[in-house]
């Protein structure tokens, strides 16, 4: 009630709606991300300091400044490799999202299929993907396909499981309400169950987003001649440690960017969902 009156558009005065977001936004940004930025900066500083004081050679552990300079000198190697890996991650993630949501819907709508496939689905996750990767390379060669399959296999599970959970945990009262309002099975699915499950599906996608980079690197390690994983593999025997670190930084950035992208998409597609951290 309280919240409703506060948010009612008629009651919001012009001054509130103009002045509030402007002054509040930078402050909430700092409050939200400030601690994480400070800790990261402190960690990098400490790392730099230790390497400096202990005189650790660059080939063993490079300092942050050495990694940073490596970005400049190694960019001709890192840049194209980044594009290759980025493509594997993006395509693999899209495939897993489509397949994951699709399978969740199918398993939700058919109890028979659910009984048939759900145990297999869980069982499939006990097979380590690392073991599968070389086999896929043998079958599909050095191209992009085995990498896409590995990324998709890793990402797909959290999306399916979260999707099925979301579809199943829809309020029974909503379904009863729809039944008395001429709601067919299909109408209930598309007007109630699917929208209600979207926040859950997006949670699954956010988890999957953090796995995607791992999948791409696994795929490249198993057999490839390009990509960030390949660059790391090739740099190891040459003790180009700074280059390996630079590749790791790039992979982290890509994974975080994908996570942020999924979160932004969620805000656009599911604007009604309760915001995390809004209650603070």
């Amino acid at each position, binding site marked *: 009630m309280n919240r*409703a009156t506060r948010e009612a558009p008629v009651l919001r005065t012009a001054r509130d709606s103009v002045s509030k977001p402007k002054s509040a936004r930078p402050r909430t940004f700092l409050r939200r991300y400030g601690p994480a930025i400070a800790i990261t900066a402190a960690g990098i500083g400490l790392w730099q300091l230790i390497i400096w004081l202990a005189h650790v050679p660059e080939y063993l552990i490079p300092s942050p400044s050495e990694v940073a300079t490596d970005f400049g000198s190694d960019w001709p190697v890192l840049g194209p490799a980044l594009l290759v890996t980025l493509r594997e991650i993006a395509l693999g993630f899209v495939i897993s999202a489509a397949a994951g949501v699709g399978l969740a819907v199918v398993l939700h709508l058919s109890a028979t299929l659910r009984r048939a496939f759900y145990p297999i689905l869980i069982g499939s996750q006990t097979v380590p993907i690392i073991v599968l990767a070389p086999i896929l390379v043998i079958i599909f060669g050095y191209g992009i396909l085995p990498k896409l399959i590995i990324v998709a296999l890793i990402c797909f599970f959290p999306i399916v499981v979260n999707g099925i959970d979301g579809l199943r945990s829809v*309020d029974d009262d909503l379904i009863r*309400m729809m039944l*008395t309002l001429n*709601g067919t099975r299909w*109408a209930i699915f598309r007007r109630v169950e699917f929208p209600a499950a979207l926040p859950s599906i997006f949670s699954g996608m956010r988890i999957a987003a953090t796995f995607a980079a791992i999948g791409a690197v696994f795929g490249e390690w198993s057999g490839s001649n390009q990509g960030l994983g390949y660059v790391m593999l090739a740099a190891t025997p040459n003790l180009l440690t700074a280059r390996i670190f630079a590749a790791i930084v790039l992979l982290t950035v890509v994974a975080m960017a994908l996570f942020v992208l999924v979160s932004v998409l969620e805000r656009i597609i*599911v604007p*009604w969902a309760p915001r995390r951290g809004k209650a603070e």
Partner: protein
Amino acid sequence: MHEISDVIAEGGPGLASELSSSRTGHRDLAMDGSVAIQIRDVGKSFGDVIALEGIDLLVPRHSRIGIVGPSGGGKTTLLQIVAGLLEPDSGQVDVEGATAGRDRLTRCALMPQRDLLLPWRSALDNAGIAVENRGVSRTEARRRTRPLFESFGLAKFEDVRPDQLSGGMRQRVSFLRTLMAEKDVLLLDEPFGSLDSITRAEMQDWLIQAMDRVPRTVLLVTHDVEEALLLGRQVVVLSARPGRVVRVLEVNHVPGGSRREVVTSPEFVSLKEQALEALES
């Protein structure tokens, strides 16, 4: 228990209604021949808990019945049985000729206790969802629903999301959504249970007017005797678990009287007393 229901089944509807009359000391609710809802010796248990037992009611078309009873007395269960969401363990329900649950569902619209508005739909699209469910396009559903927003006191709130509406407005959207299902039987389950007393009184007055405008067969369940007497033309008093019909009251208000006049009139006070007495027994 088994024997009684057998006897009633053999005796047919006449006997069933006679039984209910003798129990309530009133004639059944149908005065002319057209009956919208027949409930015959309905019983329902959940595990060991008997929610309803031997419910007999004949509800005439376009009448307004208030069903009052203590909380947890199986009132919601009764509505869900009539709606076709539940099947009774014993007895029969007939809603405009439909006896199977699936068919009853097509005859009744149920307004649940909670407003259950969908947060991803605007107020207008929430109200029109039953129209869309019949295969009508969203644009057309909006076109049909929009004119009613003004008369429901919801003008200018068409595009607002449910969480920005007040409690009373949410209930109005919920009621409009039930109406838009275009069913002849409306089942209202504690429609104002979640509202504060002032909003509740406003909404009751509003609902009386809304129901006067669109003639429908209305079953309204509440735990509030006053609400049942205000909104119903007949009031059925249910006992505590197991729910049985203990009393049927005829309500005749002075037409056009204000709420205060009605509530304080000797007839109303006496009816209220009778209902409360029936609830105590």
